[in-house]
């Protein structure tokens, strides 16, 4: 097989497989991350989440820690970003206890709690 044919085959396979991943392999706790899936104007895109955080029992203003563009992604329920935000807070506050609540409202009005404030995210962090 020529390099050209390998290139085309790999390119096309990736375009079939990457979107398929969203339908077949997406994690139940991360339903709103539609990257690489070509889901333009989808219902998931319309989700609106609200996040609140407490560090060692005191309210934590995420807007003072992170650029607003990251918080926009948090408000879209992008769990990769939410987890990274939590990791960063834990990293910069060694020994701290971080509790978050992340609630998302979908287009059909269904409300889903993605993160309950019962667990200390810093204790869970690797």
């Amino acid at each position, binding site marked *: 097989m020529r*390099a050209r044919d390998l290139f085309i085959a790999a390119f096309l396979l990736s375009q079939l497989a990457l979107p398929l991943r969203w339908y077949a392999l997406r994690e139940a706790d991360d339903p709103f991350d539609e990257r690489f899936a070509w*889901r333009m104007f989808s219902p998931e895109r319309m989700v609106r989440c609200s996040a609140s955080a407490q560090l060692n029992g005191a309210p934590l203003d995420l807007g003072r*820690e992170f650029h607003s563009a990251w918080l926009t992604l948090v408000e879209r329920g992008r769990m990769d970003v939410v987890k990274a935000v939590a990791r960063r807070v834990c990293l910069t506050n060694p020994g701290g206890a971080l509790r978050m609540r992340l609630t998302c409202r979908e*287009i059909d009005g269904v409300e889903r709690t993605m993160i309950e404030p019962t667990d200390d995210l810093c204790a869970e962090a690797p």
Partner: protein
Amino acid sequence: MSAGLAARWDRFWDAPEVEPARLGLTRLLFFGALALDTGQQLVHAGRYGAGRFNVSHLPPSLDALLPAPTAPGILLLTLTASMLCLRLALGARATIALPALAACLSATVLWSQLDSYQHHYLMVLVTLALSGAALLTTEARRSGEIAPWGFKLLRVQLAIVYAWAAVAKLDERWTSGVTLNAQLQVEWARALINSLGETLGVAPLSVVAAGAVAVLLIEALFAVAWLTPRLWPLLWPLGVAFHLSVEALDLKIGQFSLLMITLYTLVMPAPLARGLGRLVPPVEGAAGPWAWRLGAAILVAAVAFGLPFSRDLSLIGLWALLTLLITAPSPSAAARAALSAALVVGLSRSGELARDYYRFIGGDARVRGELPAAVAAYEEVVRLDPGYFSGRVRLCQLLTAVDRAQDALPHCEEALRLNPGQPDAVAAEAAARAALR
């Protein structure tokens, strides 16, 4: 692969393009539009690297190995990508220019989830596909053209995109019209829906639902049509009209419609493509005195000094190096290189792009308490737009906050000259004077 299938595969990719004028025209229009889209992204470069926080599009295990991007780094990649787009639109040899462009776009898009625009991901794929076609064929490397199979790959890619977009809409929340209804905000569309609903005696949501189902069917049709040359005479007007209507509905998707419309040149009616194809600059040749190449690099570097950002020698050096590598040794190629650089400089100086790049950096730094960084950014804001009232006030406040009230006062005074008696400016000036006592 069976012999029959392999033969059909080869026949498909090796068959000569039915209307080569479409390819040259696509190159001109697509890369021209992409230059505009990429150039306009420079305003967003300021959000990268804030607080050295980043989440890339790579899997988390690889993400940890990547350094966080920086605003100047993304700015450099964005401006370079825009310059390379223009060079390609104006006929630069693709062998180096196209992979360099694909690298710039891949880095800016994949490095951070801050860029999650689907059309930017599509542009990465388009440039990667065309890079393959510029590199993996001996004839293309010799001529500096993009081999026709690259454009065929784009047609297949677009068919795949429409197919998945249709699949995504096989969802009750889409077909019921609820999702589309929430996204339709423009007044004329709402009025049209209400009026149609009244005429037909149905609820407005039913009208939207019919539209949503129509969109699903159209996308499925497009998926088939991109792979069926017989349907191209229907696909081109329908596709262009579809994306124009998406644009008219203001669905907040940036330049996606414009870029898609330029890609529809790949299925444009042949007589139209041949007519417009006469405007396409030919691909630059490879032979000629080497001094032209050097001259072009010097010229481009000189033009780059006109960029409105703090002097960035790495950018100027990169542009000069790329110009050396991609510019044919001829006076017309040198002129095209200088024109491309000048257009990017002009774009970055137009409107409020450069000013807002610094304003967003300053605004974020201020909110996160990094006051010296905020001062530095707002000093650039005021340098670029001395008559910008809000910038003057903010700089006055920030300088006062970092114990530089003496430096703050002239900015408050200028703000009050621009907008006499404005309460924020009055308060900022009073605070600066109080700090001096």
